[in-house]
């Protein structure tokens, strides 16, 4: 025991353990990926689940619990479904950078394959909303812009603003801007209701209507600036700011100039 304790306190113990850990992770990953490539779909799925579990244990379990059962600071993930994981991790919201009021969108930490593994693992714990397939997301074909706009103004604009630019909620929470969000992620947000957002089930807003909303958001995103500089599309606040700075500034400048010339 004495010898072991001495070894444990050895100067090289830390680095050696680190190298060992990295080696293990690398090998596991290597094995997992290798297994992934050449097996049947059931085995494939269980391997993906295992890969996801490993990723989960390393990256998520400290807050969400070893078995995704949740903890004091994070909710249980049993039954949230693959769509939820795909949205939260795919948009970079999870893992959180800090324990602030709300997870923000940021460059994702995991690549698409890892996100898929995590989502498959969480989905394997209990049934929940699935990630929508490519085919079901053909909003260009199946959506209507005008209907989408109407639905958006009825269901979404109260938090996300009339032009999907985002808005403030209570206590520092906010509805983020929807500009530049993947159609898949918009769809997943509607069916899972991340953070302060309510769930819009298929009974409230049908899948076709969801596609219409996405189509309208995409059309708002690519809409040209019809009346000149858009001023953030947040309404009269920026207009007031401009008139009190540039507008009156120019006019007072001219007035000073006019009064000066007469001297």
């Amino acid at each position, binding site marked *: 025991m004495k010898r072991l304790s001495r070894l444990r306190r050895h100067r090289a113990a830390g680095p050696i353990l680190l190298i060992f850990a990295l080696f293990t992770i690398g090998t596991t990953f290597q094995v997992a990926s290798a297994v992934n490539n050449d097996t049947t779909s059931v085995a494939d799925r269980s391997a993906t689940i295992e890969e996801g579990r490993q990723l989960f244990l390393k990256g998520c379990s400290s807050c969400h619990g070893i078995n995704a059962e949740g903890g004091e600071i994070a909710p249980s993930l049993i039954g949230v479904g693959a769509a939820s994981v795909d949205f939260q991790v795919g948009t970079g919201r999870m893992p959180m950078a800090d324990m602030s009021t709300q997870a923000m969108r940021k460059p994702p930490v995991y690549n698409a394959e890892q996100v898929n593994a995590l989502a498959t693992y969480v989905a394997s714990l209990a049934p929940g909303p699935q990630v929508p397939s490519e085919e079901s997301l053909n909003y260009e074909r199946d959506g209507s812009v*005008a209907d989408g706009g109407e639905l958006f103004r009825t269901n979404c604009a109260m938090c996300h603003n009339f032009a999907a630019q985002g808005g403030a909620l209570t206590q520092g929470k906010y509805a983020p801007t929807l500009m530049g969000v993947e159609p898949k992620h918009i769809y997943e947000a509607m069916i899972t209701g991340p953070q302060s957002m309510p769930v819009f089930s298929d009974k409230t807003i049908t899948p076709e209507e969801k596609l219409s909303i996405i189509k309208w958001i995409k059309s708002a995103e690519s809409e040209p600036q019809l009346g000149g500089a858009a001023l953030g599309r947040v309404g009269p606040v920026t207009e007031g700011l401009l008139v009190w700075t540039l507008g*009156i500034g120019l006019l007072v400048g001219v007035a000073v100039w006019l009064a000066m010339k007469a001297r």
Partner: protein
Amino acid sequence: MTARERIAGNVAGYVDDRTGAAKWMKKNLTKVFPDHWSFLLGEICLYSFIILLLSGTFLTFWFDPSQREVVYDGGYQPLSGLKMSAAYASTLHISFEVRGGLLMRQIHHWAALIFMVGIVVHLLRVYFTGAFRKPREFNWIIGVGLLTLGIVEGFLGYSLPDDLLSGTGIRIAEAIIQALPLVGSYIAFFAFGGAFPGEAFIPRIYTVHVLLLPGIFLALITVHLMLVWYQKHTQFPGPGRTEKNVVGYPLMPVYMAKAGGFFFIVFGVTAFLGAVASINPIWLYGPYTPGQISAGSQPDWYMGWLDGLVRMSPPLETHAFGHTISWNILIPGLILPGIMFTGLALYPFIESWATGDKREHHLLDRPRNAPNRTALGAMALTFTIVALLNGGNDIIATTFHLTINQMMWFSRIGVLVLPPIAFIITKRLCLSLQRADRDLVLHGRETGRLVRMPNGEFVEVHEPISAEKAWLLTSHEQIAPLELPEHDAAGVRRPAAIKNKIRNRISRATAVAVPKATETERRELEGHH
């Protein structure tokens, strides 16, 4: 006499024979106006008003003020096939199909914002220089009337297109009307011709917006300018300027050229804004339906401070005899603005009561020489700015990563605490500036040049200021505080004792000043050096 002069003379004679204009023109074209950039601020309002009349007339050619339901079949695809009011559809038509329509709409709206900014900065200039004093009290009241009507007129214009944002504004206006105790719901019913939103409101406010209020504006602006003409313009103090003269340039040709040129510049700036910056993009807001609302719904800036007051109001309600009195709307939406506008309109009389000064004033005050007035103005301004900031609390919160609750509590406390602080700081600043003026007159300008005297002493050379500058810094009068008697000759308290005591106290506070430099003091100091 050349041929050209002869023809001009004949034309002029022809007109004069029929109108008798020559005598009147001769007198008035030589009228003198004093020169200062801040005297042009009121002109910004006049010119924006003309721009508003012209661009507004253009818009009426196509605007259909009706809440009749139509199906949109115009060129803007994202709204194609939606049901909307004719008012909204015709505004879309003006924006997308009428040639130059969007530009005109944007010019009209920017001109409205500039009009209101112009009124406020003009008001601030008049206030802080004391230009409202006798004999100009009526003109001040007319100005306050124009400000108030401007807010109403702007709000009605913002409400006309019947888009999601303006409909939300009308909804809030309806709520404020309903907050009136007892009669509120009846008045709202009369105004809307039934339940909200109804079909009557937009046609009604259209008539008020394009006919009634512009007519009242025109009348008030005319009286406002006629009074300036009759009473003559105030001027800043300076050598040769007295209460009995006006030093400046004649209307013809100098002011004709300046004012005419300034009109085109104001039009140019407005058109520039209309061309490069989007304003009120109603096609993005969508048609109004009572079931919809957008995050960050705001009024235009001149209503923003009222919205801010409503937003910061705590939820106070009284239930009595089957009635609800919504103090949370009533106080910030009606009572506070009522007190503020009444106080603003009556300010000239309040000040003259406080100082006991009933004389005419044509020379302006430098703001520092009226510390109490300047500090009061800073106080009112601080109150309004805090309220205005809270009007945009959601946009500010998301932009600067604050919480909307922090904004609200900042405003709730700030609106009470910051104005008195602004008063104290401004009054101190004014008195310090007076002290600096006094030093400047007595000791001259610091040149920054150090000289070593033969005995080793270092002194900084001070350069005496010009006689013109010295006059400017010493010509103002410092009013002595009132000393109204509290006791009569026999030492018995007079019936008006309390009233007089209050007036004396206010007057003492108003008259606080650093004694200005006198000629004797200056001579004495010169003798020492």
